[in-house]
């Protein structure tokens, strides 16, 4: 860890440093502030991993206990739609990282373009998810007590759908949250608030977005491809 930022005495700051509105008063330098934000975001991502992780652990153990039911149940999912959504998310990750890159290079227009592209990908993902859910609802492939699919050869398939809906549902909520955050960043980008000195929000939202992508990278084979 670099201590360079700390060796210089902190400036005696009034409420907010008048000359630079993006530097908060309790930080001495931009680098110190940027590093702090970054570590804060990573810690938050760590908690996200453990939050989803609980679901993964529950899924893993229930899968071990009811493996036949899980295998039978996953045939109700459409691999092609899952694949499509994986590709959409991967592309959105790429547009996101390009947005961050553009912001760091002071390219305002490119930043805006890439952010819009990312938002579009997120919307496509949710649309596909909407059709998938609709199909499940129609067939009665619902979680827990609402499961009403007829003619199952293997019992207990409702547990798979409990996990399917909880995992993809929580993930979809994260996508929605990401879209809200991205719109906020987009607005700032349009107004030209970012510069190569300060583009922390783009960077942080990017990190978050990649994590959402990363989680899907695991969800896809676990839910759609188990055998």
């Amino acid at each position, binding site marked *: 860890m670099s201590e360079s930022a700390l060796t210089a005495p902190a400036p005696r700051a009034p409420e907010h440093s008048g000359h630079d509105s993006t530097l908060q008063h309790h930080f001495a330098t931009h*680098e110190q502030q940027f590093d702090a934000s970054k570590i804060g975001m990573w810690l938050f991502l*760590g908690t996200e991993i453990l939050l989803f992780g609980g679901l993964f652990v529950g899924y893993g153990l229930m899968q071990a206990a009811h493996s036949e039911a899980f295998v039978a149940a996953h045939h109700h999912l459409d*691999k092609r739609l899952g694949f499509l959504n994986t590709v959409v998310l991967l592309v959105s*990750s790429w547009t996101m*990282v390009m947005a961050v*890159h553009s912001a760091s290079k002071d390219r305002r227009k490119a930043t805006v373009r890439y952010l819009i592209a990312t938002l579009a990908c997120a919307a496509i993902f949710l649309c596909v998810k909407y059709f998938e859910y609709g199909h499940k609802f129609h067939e009665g492939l619902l979680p827990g007590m609402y499961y009403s699919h007829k003619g199952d050869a293997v019992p207990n398939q409702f547990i798979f759908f409990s996990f399917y809906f909880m995992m993809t549902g929580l993930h979809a909520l994260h996508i929605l949250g990401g879209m809200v955050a991205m719109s906020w960043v987009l607005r700032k980008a349009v107004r030209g608030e970012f510069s190569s000195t300060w583009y922390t929000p783009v960077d942080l939202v990017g990190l978050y977005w990649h994590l959402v992508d990363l989680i899907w990278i695991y969800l896809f084979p676990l839910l759609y491809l*188990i055998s």
Partner: protein
Amino acid sequence: MSHDTTHAERAHGGPKIYTLVLVALLILTFITVGASYVKLGSGMANVILALGIATVKGSLVGLFFMHLRYDKPLNALVLLVSLFMLGLFLLSCYTDFETRDPLEPARLKAPVAAPAPAAAHGAH
């Protein structure tokens, strides 16, 4: 301003690398889906392969898109510790599940509350 340079330096990578990574990710996705149609030895092998590829993809995202390759090691440490804790949690629960004594009474009587989801559902 000194922090300008330090800041810009941190944004490593660049469009070329990002695009390469994206291509790699897409190829790996194709492989995962393809492999799911092929029956490998035991059922376990398919799962391990799928999760293995997912881990490679995850690492690519982490290292390049999330800049861990260029970032301060502290951030990567946070990620690794979280994953370690998750692994610990999974492993411990799994150890318990796999090593439990399957116990049955000598005169086997079905457990009172047999797992009958159909019946259980009927009640709701």
